[in-house]
C-alpha cells in the first residue's frame, strides 16, 4: 500500500499512457502500430541522450544548460567531419589545442603576474590582436570544401592544407594569445595558488605536445582514417563525437560557468549566449546548408535477400532494413534504439552501482553536505557536465546518418529535450526516460496522423498537414503536464 502511495504519480501516468496507446492504435493494423512505435522509440532514444544530460546537470548543480542542443550539434558535426573529412580536424585541432595550452597556464601566471586594471584591458586587446593575426587567411573554406566534394575518398594531401611551417607559426601565435588572455584574467584565488606547479606544467606541456603530434601526423593520420573500413570509421566517429562533446562541456563548466556560481541568472544567460555563438560558428565554418552522413556498411547493404526476414538473419546479411511484423524497418534505426538502451542502462548502473554515482545522487540531494564530507564537489561538477555533454555529442553522431547534420538541429533537439525534462521532472533520470518515450511516441504518431490526415466523424474531407504541425504538437503534452503537475511526473515537490 505504501508502495502504491509512493509511486502514485508514475502509476497514474502509466495508466493514462496505456489508455492513450490503446485508443490511438485501436483502428490501426498491427504493422502500422509496430512501425509507429519503433519510429517513436528511435526518436525517444535520441531525445533521451540530450535530455538526460540537461536533467543530470540541473539536478546536481542547478544550472540549466541552454547550450546542450549545441553540444549535440557540435558532436554531430565533429563525428561527421571525422568520418568524411578528417583533414579539417587535423588542421584545426592543433590550433585549438594551442589556445587551450595558453589558457591552462593561468594558475602559474596567477602566481607571478598581477596586472593592474588598465594593463588587463591592454592585455585583452593584445590577445585579440594576436589571435586575429595568427588566424589571418586561414583557408577554412577550402578545408571544408574538400570533404564536401569527395566524401569518403582519399584526397590528395598537398592541396588545401598549409605547409607545416605556416601552421607552426599559427600555433605559436594562438598559444601566446591564450597565455595573454589568461594573464589578463588571472586572479589570486587560494584554490589556484594551491595547484601544484608540476601538474599545471604537465597539462600545458601535454597539450602542446598533442598539438604538435597532431600536426606532424596529419597526412598519415588522414590516410589511416580514410583507409579504415566504414564501420570501424563510424565507431571511431562515435568516439570522436562523444569526446568532443565531453571536452567542450568540461571546458564550458571550468572556464565559463564556474566563475558564475554566485550569480545563477547569469549562468543561464551565458549558456543561451553560447547557443548563439555555437550556431554562428557552425554556420561560419560548415555553411548554413546541412549535409547527409553516409550510413555505415553494416546497416547499408542491399542485395536480393534484403530486407532481412528477422534480426538473426540480419547479422549475416547486414541489410539496410529488416522485416518487423511483415513491414521493412531501417536497421540503422534499430541501432539507434540499441545505443539509447545501452546508455539508459549505463547511466542507471553508474548512478546506482558505483561510488561516483553515489556521490552524484548525494550531490543532487544536498551538495553542501557532500562538500562538508570532504568530497571535492567541483571536480564532480566538471565530470558530470562532461558526461552529460558527452552523451549529447554521442547522440549527435548517432543521429547524423538518420537526420543529417544542419545548423537548426541544436534548437530542434534543445526544444525536445526541454519538453522531455519538463514532462519527466527536472533532475530525474527515470523522468527523462519516460518523458523521452512519451515525446518520441507522440511525435511519431503525430507524423503518421499528419501524413495520413485526420477525419473526424463530422468532416467530409480528411485534414492533412505538414510535418511542422507534428513538431509543434509535442508542446501540448508539456502544457498538459505543467497544468496537472507542474514539477513533472517524477519531479520532487518544491
Amino acid at each position, binding site marked *: 500500500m505504501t508502495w502504491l502511495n509512493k509511486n502514485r504519480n508514475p502509476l497514474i501516468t502509466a495508466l493514462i499512457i496505456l489508455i492513450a496507446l490503446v485508443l490511438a492504435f485501436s483502428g490501426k493494423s498491427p504493422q502500422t502500430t509496430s512501425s509507429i512505435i519503433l519510429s517513436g522509440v528511435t526518436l525517444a532514444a535520441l531525445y533521451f541522450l540530450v535530455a538526460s544530460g540537461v536533467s543530470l546537470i*540541473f539536478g546536481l548543480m542547478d544550472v*540549466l544548460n*541552454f547550450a546542450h542542443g549545441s553540444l549535440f550539434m557540435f558532436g554531430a558535426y565533429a563525428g561527421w567531419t571525422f568520418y568524411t573529412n578528417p583533414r579539417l580536424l587535423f588542421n584545426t585541432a592543433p590550433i585549438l589545442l594551442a589556445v587551450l595550452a595558453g589558457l591552462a597556464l593561468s594558475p602559474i601566471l596567477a602566481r607571478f603576474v598581477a596586472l593592474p586594471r588598465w594593463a588587463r584591458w591592454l592585455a585583452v586587446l593584445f590577445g585579440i590582436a594576436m589571435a586575429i593575426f595568427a588566424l589571418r587567411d586561414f583557408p577554412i573554406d577550402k578545408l571544408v570544401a574538400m570533404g564536401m566534394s569527395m566524401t569518403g575518398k582519399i584526397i590528395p594531401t598537398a592541396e588545401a592544407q598549409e605547409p607545416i611551417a605556416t601552421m607552426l607559426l599559427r600555433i605559436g601565435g594562438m598559444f601566446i594569445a591564450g597565455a595573454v588572455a589568461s594573464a589578463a584574467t588571472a586572479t589570486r584565488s587560494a584554490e589556484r595558488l594551491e595547484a601544484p606547479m608540476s601538474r599545471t606544467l604537465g597539462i600545458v606541456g601535454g597539450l602542446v605536445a598533442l598539438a604538435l603530434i597532431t600536426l606532424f601526423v596529419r597526412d598519415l593520420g588522414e590516410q589511416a582514417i580514410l583507409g579504415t573500413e566504414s564501420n570501424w570509421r563510424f565507431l571511431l566517429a562515435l568516439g570522436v563525437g562523444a569526446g568532443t562533446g565531453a571536452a567542450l562541456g568540461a571546458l564550458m563548466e571550468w572556464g*565559463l560557468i564556474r*566563475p*558564475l556560481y554566485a*550569480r545563477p*541568472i*547569469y549562468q*543561464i*544567460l*551565458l549558456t*543561451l*549566449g*553560447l*547557443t*548563439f*555563438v555555437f550556431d*554562428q*560558428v557552425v554556420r*561560419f565554418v560548415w555553411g548554413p546548408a546541412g549535409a547527409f552522413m553516409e550510413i555505415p556498411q553494416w546497416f547499408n547493404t542491399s542485395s536480393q535477400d534484403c530486407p532481412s526476414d528477422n534480426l538473426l538473419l540480419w547479422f549475416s546479411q547486414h541489410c539496410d532494413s529488416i522485416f518487423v511484423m511483415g513491414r521493412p524497418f531501417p536497421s540503422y534505426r534499430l541501432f539507434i534504439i540499441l545505443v539509447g538502451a545501452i546508455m539508459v542502462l549505463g547511466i542507471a548502473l553508474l548512478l546506482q552501482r558505483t561510488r561516483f554515482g553515489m556521490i552524484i545522487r548525494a550531490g543532487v540531494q544536498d551538495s553542501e553536505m557532500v562538500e562538508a564530507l570532504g568530497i571535492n564537489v567541483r571536480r564532480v561538477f566538471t565530470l558530470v557536465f562532461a558526461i552529460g555533454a558527452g552523451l549529447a555529442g554521442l547522440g549527435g553522431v548517432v543521429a547524423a546518418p538518420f537526420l543529417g547534420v544542419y545548423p537548426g538541429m541544436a*534548437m530542434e533537439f*534543445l*526544444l525536445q529535450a*526541454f*519538453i522531455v*525534462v*519538463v514532462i519527466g521532472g*527536472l533532475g530525474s533520470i527515470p523522468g527523462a526516460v519516460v518523458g523521452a518515450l512519451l515525446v518520441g511516441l507522440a511525435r511519431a504518431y503525430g507524423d503518421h496522423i499528419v501524413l495520413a490526415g485526420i477525419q473526424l466523424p463530422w468532416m467530409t474531407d480528411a485534414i492533412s*498537414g*505538414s510535418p*511542422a*504541425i507534428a*513538431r*509543434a504538437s509535442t*508542446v501540448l503534452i*508539456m*502544457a498538459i503536464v*505543467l*497544468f496537472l503537475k*507542474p*514539477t513533472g511526473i517524477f*519531479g520532487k515537490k*518544491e
Partner: protein
Amino acid sequence: MNQFIRNNLGYLLLLAALVILPYALALITGDPLNKGLPLFVQGLMIQVFILAVFALSYDILMGHTGILSFGHALFFGTGAYTLGILVKYGQWSIPAAIVAVVIIAALESFVIGVLSLRVHGVYFAMVTLAFATVAFILVEATDFKKWTGAEDGLHGIPVPDALNPALHRTEFYFLALAFAVMVYLLVKLFVDSPSGRVWAAIRENEARATSIGYNTLVFKVQATIISGIIGALAGVLNALWNLSATPQTMGVDTTINALLMCIIGGSGTIIGPMLGAGVLQLLGYLLNLWLGSVWQLVFGLIYILLVLFVPYGIIGTWRAKNFEWRAMWRDRLQRVATGTGKSSG
C-alpha cells in the same frame, strides 16, 4: 517645477536632442527631411525606438521581477502577425486590430504565466522558449501559408497613407518617439507603484515576499501580462514600420537581442534597456558594414564577455561608479574642511 527639471535634466536633454535630430541633420547636410542622410538616420532611429520599447518590456520581467523569459519574441511576433493578418485579410481598421492584439497578448501571457510560474524559476525560461519555438515553427509551416506567408512572411500590410512610413517618414519618426516616451513613463509608473514594489521584493527574495503574505504568483503573472502586452505593441509598431511580419520576429534571435539590450544598457534600470537598444542597433549597423556576416559571431562573443565581466551594463556600472566617486569626493572634501589629514579609505 525647477526641481523637476533639475532632477530629470539628462532625460529632458536626451528627449530634446532626439526631437531636434532630424532637423539638425537636414540643416547640416543640406538635404531635405525625406532624402539622403536625414531620411536614413530617421529610419535607423525608428528601429531603435521600436526595439527600445521591446527591450523595456523584456526588462519588466528580467530586471524588475527577476523572471527570465527566453521566449519574449513570441509577443513581438504575436503583435506583428495579429495586426498583419487582421488588417490585411480581415479588413479591420488599425485601432481595432491593436485592441485585438492587446487582448490576444494578454491571454497568451496569462496562460504561459499560470502554466510555468508555479515552479522553479528556470521553468519559465524553458517553457517560454518552447512556446516561442513552437510559434516560430507554426508561422513557418506551409499549412497556414495563405495567412502567414510561411517562410517569406506576411507582406504588404495595407495602411492609410497618413501612417505610411515611406511617404511620411518624419511623422512616423515622431510617432515612434512618442510611443517610446509614453511606454517609458508607463513602465516608470508601474515600477514605482505598490505592485512594482512587490515585483522588486520577488526579485530580491521570493521566499521572503511569500512569507510577508503576498501571493507572489499573482504578481508574477501580472508582470508577465504587462510585459507581454507592451512587447506585442512593439511588434505592432514594427509591423507598421516594415509593412510586413516575418518569421524572424518570432525567432530566438529576437529574444537574444532584447536580452542583449538589457544587459548592455543595464538591467533593472528603466532607461538602461532603451539606451542598450540604441547602442546595439548602431553598433550592429557599424559592425555589419565593417565585418560582413561574421558580425553576429563577434556579437555573440561580446555578449558572453559582457555577461562575464560587465554584468550591470552601462547604466548600472555608471551608477555604481558614480556613487563611489561621489562618496570618495565627499570624503575628501570633509577631510579638507575638518583638517584631518588621514584618509579613511
